[in-house]
C-alpha cells in the first residue's frame, strides 16, 4: 500500500471541500473492503483517503411512507440484512446484501460502496435497478438525486464529480402488491462473486428485471420485462420466451469464472429462478 494522508471529516461540507481540492487524488474510505484491496494491489495510489464514517447524515437508515427507504452511505450490509423495515418492505435488498462476501466482510462493506465500485458483478446493484433507486449526492451546490442507471457509467465508472459525495441510496416507496428476488449463480456456495445474477421485481403485475455480471454494467431486461408483463400464468414453460429474450439482451465475456456460452445458459436459468422466487414473495 502506498503512503497517503488520512482525513476523517465530521461534516458533509468539510468532506466536499477535501474531495474538491484533491480531485482524482482522493479516494473515499467507506467500508474499505474494496479500497484496501485495490490499494494493496497498487491498482490505485490515492494521496488522500477520506474516511466518511464520521458524517452523521451518512449513518441514517430510515423509511417514510412518502419518500420510501433511505440507506445512508455507511450503513453496512449486515445492518441491511438485519433491518426489520428492509426485511418487511424490500426483502430483495436484504437478500442481495446477504450475498456479498463473508459475514465479517458484511460487517464493513456497505451498499453505497458496492454501488460506487460499479463492478459488473456487484450483488446489490441489480436489485437497486429494479427498485428504481436513486443515488443521493451532496455537493456545495446542494443535494441531487440521480437514478442508479444514470449514476453507473461503466466498469468502475460512476457519475461523481470532484467535490461530490454520495450520502446514500434513496428507494421509492412501493405501493400495492409486490415481490422480488435476487438469484446469484456462482462457483462456490460460500463467499464468491456472481458468475451471473438476476434481480426480478414485480409490482402490481409489472415486472422489472436486471442482469448482473453479463455486461460492463448492470443491464435492465426491458425485453424480458415486456414479455413477463403480458403473461397470465408464469411457470417453467411460459417463462421460456422471457428466458430467450434475456439471452438477447446481454453481452457477456469469457473470463476465469465462466465462458460467455455458460453465462448465456445461466442467464436463462437465473432469470427463471429469480422470477419464480419473486412470485413466491408476491403479496
Amino acid at each position, binding site marked *: *500500500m502506498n503512503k497517503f494522508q488520512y482525513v476523517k471529516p465530521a461534516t458533509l461540507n468539510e468532506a466536499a471541500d477535501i474531495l474538491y481540492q484533491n480531485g482524482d487524488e482522493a479516494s473515499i474510505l467507506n467500508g474499505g473492503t474494496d479500497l484496501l*484491496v485495490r*490499494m494493496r494491489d497498487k491498482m490505485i495510489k490515492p494521496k488522500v483517503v477520506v*474516511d466518511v464514517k464520521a458524517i452523521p447524515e451518512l449513518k441514517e437508515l430510515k423509511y417514510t411512507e412518502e419518500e420510501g427507504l433511505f440507506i445512508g452511505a455507511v450503513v453496512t450490509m*449486515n445492518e441491511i440484512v438485519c433491518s426489520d423495515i428492509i426485511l418487511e418492505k424490500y426483502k430483495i435488498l436484504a437478500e442481495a446484501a446477504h450475498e456479498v462476501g463473508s*459475514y*465479517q466482510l458484511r460487517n*464493513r462493506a456497505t451498499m453505497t460502496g458496492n454501488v460506487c465500485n460499479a463492478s459488473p458483478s456487484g450483488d446489490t446493484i441489480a436489485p437497486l435497478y429494479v427498485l428504481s433507486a436513486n443515488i443521493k449526492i451532496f455537493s456545495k451546490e446542494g443535494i441531487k438525486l440521480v437514478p442508479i442507471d444514470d449514476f453507473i457509467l461503466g466498469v468502475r465508472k460512476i457519475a461523481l464529480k470532484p467535490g461530490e459525495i454520495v450520502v446514500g441510496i434513496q428507494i421509492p416507496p412501493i405501493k400495492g402488491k409486490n415481490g422480488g428476488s435476487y438469484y446469484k449463480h456462482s462457483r462456490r456456495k*460460500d*463467499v464468491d462473486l456472481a458468475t451471473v445474477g438476476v434481480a426480478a421485481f414485480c409490482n402490481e403485475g409489472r415486472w422489472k428485471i436486471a442482469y448482473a455480471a453479463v455486461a460492463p454494467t448492470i443491464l435492465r431486461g426491458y425485453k424480458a420485462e415486456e414479455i413477463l408483463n403480458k403473461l397470465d400464468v408464469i411457470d417453467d414453460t411460459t417463462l421460456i420466451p422471457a428466458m430467450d429474450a434475456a439471452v438477447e439482451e446481454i453481452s457477456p465475456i469469457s473470463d476465469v469464472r465462466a465462458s460467455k456460452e455458460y453465462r448465456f445458459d445461466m442467464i436463462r436459468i437465473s432469470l427463471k429462478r429469480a422470477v419464480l422466487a419473486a412470485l413466491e414473495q408476491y403479496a
Partner: protein
Amino acid sequence: MKHSISFTINGEKVHLEVEPHKTLLNMIREDLNLTGAKEGCGAGECGSCTVIVDGKAVNSCMMLAVEADGKEIITVEGLAKNGVLDALQESFINNAALQCGYCTPGMLMSAKALLMRNPKPSEEEIKEAIAGNLCRCTGYKVIVDAIKEAAEKNN
C-alpha cells in the same frame, strides 16, 4: 503524518502513533506483538485475520489502523480470561477442530462474535458465520461440531 489513536484491546487501553497506510492487522501484529491474527491472503478472502471490533467480526487486513481509534478490539489472545479458556477454545481442542492451527485464531473469533450476538445459533447460522474462514486441514465438520458444543455449554 502519523495519527495518534486510542483504543481498547483485550481489555487494555492503548495509545499509539500510527501511519495511515498501516492496516489494523499490521498494527496488531507489529506494534502490539499480538501475532495470533494472521495474514493468509491480504484481501478479505480467507478470514485468518479476523478479530472482533466493537462486538463485530471483521477482517483486520481490510481495515486501517487509524480506523481503530475509539474502538474496542478483541483478538484471540483476549479469549481466555485469567488463564481460563473460553468455551470455544475448550471445544476446539476436544473436537480436534484444529490441525495446523493457522486458521484457528480467525475461526475462533468469527465463532466468538457469533456466540456474542446469538448464543444459540442453528447449524446454518454457524456456517454463515464461518463461511469466510478458510481451513485447508479439517474439512470443517469438526469445527461446526465444536461451535455447537461451545454454544450448548454456554446455555
